[in-house]
């Protein structure tokens, strides 16, 4: 009798264990990384970490594929180390660039690299950071020019400052956003400022300036974050 109980228990347990086998799918076996690159200059296009541009993709071979998403790091690169090898359709979209055509990408086991080459909506050039005094107050002043690749109006420009290198439209300790509403010349100098008293002495901050073009679902075009200690810049 006792052996029977042991036997049946072992039998049921073996059934339970073996029944799980079918569900043991393989884990992610591929890494996918790359960058979003300005097709003209060859530079990566700086991005926002929160509410920034995305790569929408679907994996082929399923009836109702879910749209999945990759986001960019602020420097314009992306990386997903937990991808499954297979065929994908991908499109960088809702960003600060003209969306290219959908691309068919095969992800193989192991390391995969792909760079999306696109035309940005705008380029931020000639960024210079100064400090100056106006009516007895000291200001951090950032000057730059906008190369409006998309020939539309500039909706707004923004100066964003944080101790975190991911500084951007939604991540900032201090910001100054200014509405423009007109188109701009590539050599027209834009100026944004904020009180120097914002900043703790002896602390380094990341500074970015950007322009938002007046296009549906557009995101800001930024410069690469510049790390400075605002109080060490000589007052002009």
């Amino acid at each position, binding site marked *: 009798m006792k052996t029977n109980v042991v036997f049946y228990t072992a039998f049921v347990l073996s059934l339970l264990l073996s029944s799980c086998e079918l569900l043991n799918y393989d884990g992610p076996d591929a890494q996918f990384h790359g960058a979003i690159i300005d097709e003209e200059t060859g530079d990566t296009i700086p991005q926002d970490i929160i509410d920034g541009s995305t790569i929408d993709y679907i994996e082929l071979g399923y009836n109702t594929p879910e749209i999945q998403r990759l986001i960019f790091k602020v420097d314009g690169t992306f990386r997903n180390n937990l991808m499954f090898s297979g065929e994908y359709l991908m499109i960088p979209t809702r960003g600060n660039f003209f969306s290219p055509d959908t691309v068919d990408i095969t992800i193989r086991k192991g390391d995969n690299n792909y760079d999306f080459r696109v035309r940005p909506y705008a380029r931020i050039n000639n960024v210079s950071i100064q400090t100056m005094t106006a009516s007895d107050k000291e200001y951090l002043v950032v000057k730059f020019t906008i190369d409006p690749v998309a020939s539309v109006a500039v909706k707004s420009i923004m100066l964003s400052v944080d101790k975190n290198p991911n500084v951007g439209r939604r991540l900032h300790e201090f910001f100054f*956003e200014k509405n423009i509403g007109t188109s701009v010349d590539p050599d027209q100098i834009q100026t944004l400022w904020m009180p120097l008293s914002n900043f703790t002495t002896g602390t380094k901050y990341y500074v970015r300036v950007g322009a938002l073009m007046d296009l549906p679902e557009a995101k800001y075009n930024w410069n690469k974050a510049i790390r400075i200690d605002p109080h060490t810049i000589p007052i002009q």
Partner: protein
Amino acid sequence: MKKYSLILIFVLAGLYGCKDYLDLDPTNKISADALFSSEEGIKAFMANLYFQTPIEDFNWQAFYMQSFNFRSNNAGLFPLTFTDEAVNSEYDIVDPGPWGFFWWDPGYRLNKDINMLFDAIPTLSINQEKKDRLFGEACFLRAYTYFELAKLYGGVPIITQIGNPNDPPTLYIPRSPEKETWDFILSTLDTAIVKLDDDNLDKRRANKWVALALKSRVALHAASIAKYWDRAPLSGEAVDNKLVGGMTQEDAQRYYLECIHASEELINSELFGLYMPDPSTPDEAAENYRLMFVDPDNAPEEVIFIRGYTMQDHGHAFQLWGETNQTKESWPFAGRFNPIIELVDAYESYSAPGESAPIITTTDGDYNNYAGYNPSRDYLEFDNPLDIFADKDARLKATVILPMSTWKGTQIIIQGGIIKTDGTPVIEGAGQETIGDKTYYSFGAADPNAYSGFLHAATHTRSGFLMRKYLDENFHPKAIWASCTNDWIELRYAEILLNYMEAVVESGQGDPAKAEQYLNDLRHRAGHTTNIPLSLENVMRERRIELAFENKRYWDLIRRREYHTKFNNRNRHALVPVFDLRSMKYIFVRQKVTGTLTWTFYEHSYYKPIGGTTTNKLIQNPQY
């Protein structure tokens, strides 16, 4: 052998179990046939449908996967605190994202119940007149249901038949384009308007006028989305198929005209009017306005449709959350609704009609400076803190409890700090100074139960203001959830006037002279004597003030696509009364509501995510 016969007996017994005599009708439920065979049954069924109807009242809970009729502890998270009307003293939320506004499943459950009613009506043994009325009522409820669905999700599947589980195509109904969804709601309301009675005696059930009023609201909503879609365009499969957006300026004009016609028919019936349209003083105007919301039965001429509450424990908790800390008695929660200074600013003053009158706190007049107390600025000083609001529109003091004003016979102490005699500011922190034999405390009193502001506890306001609208001075909080029983005004005449004005001003259709007259009628009711011209700015300011906290602001920001520009890296602000011990006068500091975040409303939040798209095979809204 014996073993086998035993097994055989069990198998046979198992088969025998399927015999009919076990198919008993449940004794604790009523079958559909029995329900629809008597008028009482129909009445009970209708009561349940009205209960489920998405009326955005005191029990509208748009957070944490809840929706309507939420009658237990909802944390006081009413959607009015998601807007630029108020903050919640405990939970700072503007856009709850995918956690908010869940009504996909409950919406279609209600839709199925309404379809059951449509199926049952022809089989009922009642006369044709009653059948028509019931049919009209069913149309009204269907329109209400789809209005909520369209507001939340854009174009939705229009399901007017009960699906057959054995016939999958009847279950998988794709989404209709947004435009067709709005058209369906409006045409359903047209049927309701024709079929329903035209008396407005029972304000708790649908009649012709309720349906017309709802149509005025629906058409304005659809028109605004058609007109302002381009302010926040989206992309993706749902947009390509016009399931969201995809309406033209011609559609906008057509919907505005529908709003104008529906509003006109209701106005021209002369069955309705403004409650107490002719006050002799602003104080009288304020009291009239307050009384209307404490008990809508006071104002039958203005009220069109009510959701009633009668039973304690089956009411709502609005006043339980809204009471001031000083008057909450033994109830532990209070002070959750903190109206923000931006709303208070919006009210006109009697001396400068036709514009918002921001609260000026310093001699330089800069009301956009929210940097907090700065000793180098020159603050205006007041003996009586209420003087700073003296000239404001009467509706302000009927809508919010101002610092140091009286509520339930108690002076509500809302003070955020003191400036000590040596000039040291103590703001939003504990501090005191004794001068002679009197001690002055930064919050206005020593005991936290003796004041109502700035302690940074959930029971104390953080904004400098508390809720007064809807609150009843005779109500005493009891330790029972949902023990408030004052009724909710869902539709009132003033909203119809405001809908008409907005449609006229936005579309150039209708009668601008009448619209201007209605605008000034509303202002006159609030104690204004100078008329102002009809303009979009004037109409929208009037709407914001007249309908403050009536759960309209959220949808105004949505339908006019203003949320993402009004909430773009935005803070919400407070007015902090501070007692200056050097001059023994009050000063006021405009600053950020302490403990709140900088908020952004993302454009994809104009539509909410559809539930269960992997099984119901529907196209999801953009970016979910």
